[in-house]
């Protein structure tokens, strides 16, 4: 008996050792969450050329010879040469190109949104303090920190990210609207429709006219914007490779010609230039402020006899973009923004109501439940992530994919969502600097937080403002999800109270203001010509 056990033990030992060895190979994830099936829109939205753009422009600006002039006829010698090139490329297909075709065939706007959220997460890390206790300020002139700036650029924190998502979405939408108008005007067929011997590789035969290429438009407008938002060498190279793939994949797949693509690229660049003009002058350059300006925020509150926010970091860090509240808005004018943002003042810190709210924060953090911690962490979207606006883009993605929306409609919906969230950020940051309210941990240093304590004033909650605005817009776009969006916004809002970094009034105030901001985006959505 003993021998049998002993022998079997030896066998078992060898077997388990082998098993451990086998399971020990290269690790990977089966799904990284970027998987997208082939995009097959339920509606092609071929009238989208009439939709209202964000940037003022007319089609005649783009029909000039240097951008998208009338294309050569499909019977022309030049076009036949292009057809020959398409055939050659289709014949030259390889696995790398097949992978690229499958990737971009999931939807260009969806892909770029994923890429942007990835780059936001990559760059969303606060600068390290200098030896003397000051902090370097990221500089777009020295993105790789090669010239002594002391930190890389950007620090894609929530306000930065909200702006990035908004501008890229707007630029993509405006460019696609113009592309749709030009497609309709020129109505040139795709090469596989001209020459039936061309069989599309992986992709479906296009239902839209081919000239200019919408993929090249997206590639150009997005790349031009994003390389300025994420100018580090490695990021720009990454973006360039993605751009080149999207630009050419439909030629490799047999459904676009070189002139379709080159016209699309020129259009993308032209629309980029117009949107970028607004970007450069929207007030972001003054959002950081200076020591004197930061001090004046503190002084203004202290002169009122109130407690001013101060950084709880060591060394104390300047507030995150405290003058972002002055950046230009999308869906309302400045007066409307100021009015919305200062409509609900916070409690004075010497009131019993305030003390009760402070005690409530502490009660959530003293003995946190596992369920509450899960909520805190699910919605934290802090440093190193795609931020709360990124999270709401992720939520929107599921609905866009399920609804099988066309590229231009996807762009429009992201533009509505992301302009609303940028307005939410502007409004919330306006409120934060206006009241400059201390965080719970500043008022009671025994409050230990379950997520990172954001380095800017408490009132109102950014998560609440973002989430209410996003839920309002998404509920308009996807009424079937309204109940879920609202429940998620409520949970995102409460997560900040559970985490010990916000009072209830921050969350409630943020929800109300966020809803008002979202309503303004819905007003636009109701009048942009989209059915």
């Amino acid at each position: 008996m003993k021998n049998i056990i002993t022998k079997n033990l030896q066998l078992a030992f060898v077997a388990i050792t082998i098993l451990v060895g086998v399971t020990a190979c290269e690790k990977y994830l089966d799904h990284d969450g970027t998987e997208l099936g082939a995009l097959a829109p339920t509606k092609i939205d071929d009238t989208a050329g009439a939709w209202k753009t964000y940037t003022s422009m007319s089609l005649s600006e783009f029909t000039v010879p240097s951008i998208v002039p009338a294309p050569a006829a499909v019977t022309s010698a030049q076009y036949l040469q292009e057809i020959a090139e398409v055939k050659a490329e289709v014949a030259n297909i390889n696995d790398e190109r097949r992978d690229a075709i499958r990737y971009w065939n999931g939807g260009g706007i969806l892909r770029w949104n994923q890429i942007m959220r990835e780059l936001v997460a990559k760059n969303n890390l606060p600068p390290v303090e200098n030896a003397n206790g000051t902090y370097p300020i990221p500089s777009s002139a020295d993105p790789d920190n090669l010239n002594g700036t002391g930190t890389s650029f950007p620090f894609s924190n929530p306000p930065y990210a909200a702006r990035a998502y908004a501008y890229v979405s707007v630029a993509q939408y405006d460019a696609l609207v113009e592309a749709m108008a030009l497609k309709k005007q020129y109505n040139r067929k795709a090469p596989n429709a001209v020459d039936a011997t061309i069989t599309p590789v992986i992709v479906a035969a296009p239902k839209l006219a081919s000239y200019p290429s919408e993929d090249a438009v997206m590639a150009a407008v997005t790349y031009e914007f994003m390389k300025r938002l994420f100018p580090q060498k490695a990021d720009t190279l990454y973006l360039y490779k993605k751009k080149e793939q999207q630009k050419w994949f439909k030629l490799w797949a047999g459904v676009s010609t070189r002139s379709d693509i080159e016209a699309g690229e020129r259009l993308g660049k032209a629309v980029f230039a117009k949107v970028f003009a607004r970007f450069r002058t929207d007030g972001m350059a003054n959002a950081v402020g200076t020591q004197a300006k930061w001090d004046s925020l503190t002084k203004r509150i202290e002169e009122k006899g109130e407690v001013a926010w101060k950084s709880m970091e060591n060394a104390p860090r300047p507030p995150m973009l405290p003058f972002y509240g002055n950046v230009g808005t999308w869906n309302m004018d400045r007066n409307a923004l100021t009015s919305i943002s200062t409509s609900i003042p916070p409690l004075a810190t010497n009131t019993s109501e305030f003390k009760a709210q402070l005690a409530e924060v502490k009660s959530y953090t003293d003995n946190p439940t596992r369920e509450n911690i899960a909520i805190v962490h699910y919605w934290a979207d802090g440093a190193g992530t795609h931020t709360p606006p990124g999270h709401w883009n992720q939520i929107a993605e599921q609905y866009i994919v399920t609804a099988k929306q066309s590229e231009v409609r996807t762009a429009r919906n992201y533009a509505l969502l992301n302009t609303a969230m940028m307005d939410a950020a502007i409004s919330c940051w306006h409120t934060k600097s206006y009241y400059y309210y201390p965080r719970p941990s500043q008022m009671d240093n025994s409050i230990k937080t379950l997520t990172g304590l954001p380095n800017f004033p408490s009132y109102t909650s950014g998560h609440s403002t973002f989430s209410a605005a996003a839920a309002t817009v998404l509920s308009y776009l996807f009424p079937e999800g309204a109940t879920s969006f609202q429940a998620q916004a409520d949970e995102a809002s409460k997560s900040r109270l559970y985490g010990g970094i916000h009072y209830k009034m921050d969350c409630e105030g943020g929800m109300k203001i966020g809803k008002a901001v979202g309503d303004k985006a819905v007003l636009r959505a109701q009048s942009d010509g989209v059915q």
Partner: protein
Amino acid sequence: MKKLSKYSLLAILLLTTLFAKAQTMTDGIFMAKGNLCGGVTYMNDSWNKYWEGTLYRENKNIGTITTQAVMLMGNYGISDRFNVLASLPYVSTKASAGVLHGMNGFQDLTMSVKYRLAQTKNLSVIGSVGGSIPTNNYVADFLPLAIGMQSKTLFGRGVLYYTLPADLALTLHGTYTARSNVKVDRTMYYSDKGYFTNEMMMPDMVNFGGKFGHYSYRWQLEATYDQQITQGNIDIRRNDMPGLCDKFDFTKVGFIAAYRVPQLKDLQIILTGSKVLTGRNVGESTNFSISLTKYIDFRKNRTSEIPTGPICRPGDKNHTGSMTEEHKEH
């Protein structure tokens, strides 16, 4: 008996991480058939400097991270050369500065079997396999204050135990640990790229090390050396928090001192200390522990010839531990 303790928790950046690892799991000692050794360990691990990737730094917003653990451990002799072992720590963390909340709770149950594959005159060749499983849904994705990694593990280990004259002994051990991926509370994170999922991949780990010094039934004083290498190449990014899938590497030296107290029926007291000398994505931690262990012989019909308690020197009757309750070695 064994020492249960020891470098139990690997001082990972948060330390957290840790597999609580009883010393017996990596040494050459076996409990005699029918004997159970049980014990309790208190462990304290702290650091105020760490390696962010390979960059050595401090962080005034966390100050000193202290991890304390109380671990229960058991080791039962199915035969003189085949033991089963189990351990379960309760872990508590805190940061001395900043506002981040500490964590506490029961961590992972580790179980293993250990088998003496071969025995020459002075050399034991030992194999061990085992695994660990989280005992509850504690928060893992909160380094460096999480109490553990939430990963299920499976490990295989080899141990060489070489006894020398004058009660000296040399032990070498190596372990390969396969770790399951982990589900976290969030659905987006960035490590080597962006992931839009709540699943994190956990690279496997290799641990090896050794110890040398005096080892006898009554006394133990040994110097220890340990090395951990985590597969993959994911470092903490500049000024980021650590992630579960990071490359947690370290080199650590320390000591073990133990004594069985005759007046307390050979209750064993074990002290250990260790210090991380160099690392990557881990704290430069200082670790100490104290353990109390006791063994019980469950056999009804013992004869004076069979070993009782720990078999400290296989094949050497003078060092096999007490032969009976009445004939303890002095």
